[in-house]
């Protein structure tokens, strides 16, 4: 056999090992026929034509965005909520590296991967929403608007995307067998983590700063000069909630990816996160209350808006805080997961309240997203799940790579 032929054959087995999970292409395609994939196919079949329509016919063809509602579902969900829900990466990285909480090490990689993909799809959502997305680089090179909050957010998100890529890179390098490069990255890890936490502090809070200039458009219950602080603190709770929910889901969905020789103590991890969650939410509740005290609009509590504010404050901040506490005392992982889900929903609710529900609160005409807007958002989330699954099935994310076991600092 010629050298070329050997190389070709080796190449073939590389593709089979790394891409087709050790199956032949035919077997691999057959393995893709599952109920979950059928659901995914339906969503994509509905959503991709909407995406095409968005870029072929313009924003007006698919969205209910208007002159009074320039920001709709895509900004509220894909961008503003997306960034908050991707906070697990920096939250767990900070706990493991900075605070030395090694218990959380097993959920660090999935959290970083969720964060990385979260930001990639935030960018995707942004490209859908921007009128002329090809001009995104202008803010970095051509005509930077240095006075804009968005300028800071733009730089932070751009740099943090690179940081998350570097934080996740060791997993990809282990998968590819590039040990030397991986060792190099491992040496820089603490610097990268510190940069990541700093960038996250900056842009998680600055997303709230977008609305500082809209004091009369956002209802007093959700407007506050402290919005950046609210957004930052709640991003920590979102990160904790997301890691609890996501780790429970992926340990169920990918249990064949776990290493039976090195079982992960999910009880200790979940309850540890729950303890942190209880504290952060409790603090967040009172910080939010300070916002209300600052506005002095207690009189509005008796309106419908007051009831809605109560739903968020009591049902999605104080209640999960309390449930986290109970779950820790009773050592109930189930309850902690429920509280985690409630926390995630609560942060979503808050971002929607600030950017949609309580925005333009004095206008009688409300914005309701068009079906195509919802389908596009759903498509973006689905693509995120598909890529997450593709990576988890191949790279050492949920379990350590056997060659590198225990080598993580």
């Amino acid at each position, binding site marked *: 056999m010629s050298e070329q032929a050997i190389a070709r054959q080796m190449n073939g087995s590389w593709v089979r090992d790394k891409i087709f999970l050790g199956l032949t292409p035919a077997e691999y395609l057959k393995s893709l026929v599952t109920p979950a994939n059928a659901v995914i196919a339906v969503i994509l079949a509905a959503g991709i034509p909407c995406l095409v329509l968005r870029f072929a016919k313009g924003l007006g063809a698919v969205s209910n*965005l208007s002159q009074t509602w320039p920001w709709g579902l895509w900004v509220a969900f894909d961008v503003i909520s997306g960034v908050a829900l991707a906070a697990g990466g920096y939250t767990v990285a900070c706990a493991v590296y900075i605070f030395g909480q090694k218990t959380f090490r097993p959920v660090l990689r999935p959290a970083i991967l969720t964060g990385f993909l979260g930001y990639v799809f935030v960018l995707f959502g942004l490209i859908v929403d921007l009128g002329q*997305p090809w001009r995104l680089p202008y*803010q970095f090179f051509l005509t930077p*608007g*240095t006075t804009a909050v968005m300028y800071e957010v733009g730089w932070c998100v751009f740099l943090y995307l690179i940081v998350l890529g570097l934080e996740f890179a060791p997993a990809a390098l282990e998968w590819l067998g590039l040990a030397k490069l991986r060792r190099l990255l491992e040496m820089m890890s603490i610097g990268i983590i*510190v940069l990541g*936490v700093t960038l996250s502090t900056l842009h998680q*809070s600055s997303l709230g700063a977008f609305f500082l200039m809209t004091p009369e458009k956002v209802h007093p219950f959700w407007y506050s000069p402290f919005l950046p602080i609210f957004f930052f603190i709640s991003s920590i709770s979102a990160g904790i909630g997301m890691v609890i929910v996501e780790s429970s889901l992926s340990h169920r969905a990918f249990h064949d990816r776990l290493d039976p020789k090195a079982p992960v103590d999910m009880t200790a991890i979940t309850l540890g996160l729950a303890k942190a969650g209880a504290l952060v939410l409790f603090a967040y509740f009172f910080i939010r209350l300070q916002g209300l005290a600052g506005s002095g609009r207690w009189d509005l509590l008796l309106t419908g808006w007051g009831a809605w504010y109560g739903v968020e404050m009591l049902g999605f901040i104080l209640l999960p805080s309390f449930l986290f506490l109970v779950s820790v005392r009773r050592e109930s992982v189930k309850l902690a997961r429920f509280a985690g889900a409630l926390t995630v929903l609560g942060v979503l609710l808050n971002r929607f309240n600030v950017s949609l529900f309580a925005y333009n609160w004095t206008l009688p005409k409300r914005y309701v997203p068009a079906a195509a807007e919802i389908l596009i958002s759903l498509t973006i989330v689905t693509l995120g799940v598909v890529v997450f699954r593709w990576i988890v099935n191949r790279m050492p994310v949920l379990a350590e790579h056997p060659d590198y076991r225990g080598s993580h600092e």
Partner: protein
Amino acid sequence: MPVNRRQILKLAAAAGATAALPGPGGAEAALARPSKDARAVLVDIANCVGCRSCEMACSEANRLPEPESDVNFETPRATGPDRFTVVNRATAKSAGGDERFAKTQCMHCVEPACASGCVVRALEKRADGPVVYHADRCLGCRYCMVACPFGVPKYEYTKLAPIVRKCTFCAERQAEGKPPACADACPNGALTFGKRAELIEEAKKRIYGTPGKYVSEIYGELEAGGTSWLYISDVPLQTLGLPPGVSKTSYPEMADRALSAVPFVITLWPPLLMGLWAMNKRKEEVAAAGKAGEGRHE
């Protein structure tokens, strides 16, 4: 003295973390401090008869479709991508029982929220007054529309390469020494073009010179920290269709407070986090050494 943005950027640059950022020249370009000669228009509602000549002149000057001819003023109209100014009927009548009308357009704020919040400096406040728009920079984030307290910028949602549209204060005409087309066309002296400082004096002269005629307030003197369009009226200002509840302080300042924290986070977070990391690492090492030591004693 509160820290201003220029100092913040200098601090940030000093921190090294933003060494790659372009200098603060951009900030000056986007938000020029208005000169003493900055131009403005004084709208005297008492003189407006609702003839809409200003609308016609605006369409002509900006090459917009002709404004609709059959306006009955029953429902208020809004400006749009193809309509930079509209005249609406006030909900109140004058003391003499006459109907009152008010023209709305971009207010050309002294410190515009739109320009300060624009990430690509597509909106730019010029020292001589106008807030101008550079369509070739705009990426279409529509934050200007979110930020503008007057709801002025409008977007071309139906186009494939959409841009923001709004009144330009006829910056080109002004550069030629001419007044804005609308002010030029007004047949009844409702629109007076001039220097902002002088027009505020003129407005006060009219208010105090004819006691009892005007409401003693100039809309735009303080609104949003001051605007280039100033309104005086003989009917209550809130009946004119101008947005209520506009803050009387500068909008960019509201965001400045948060941005002033940025350099501190950039400079303080890394050493703080590194310190915590080192402390926890040391604790682990001591604990590990302690364990090893115990082992030796046994």
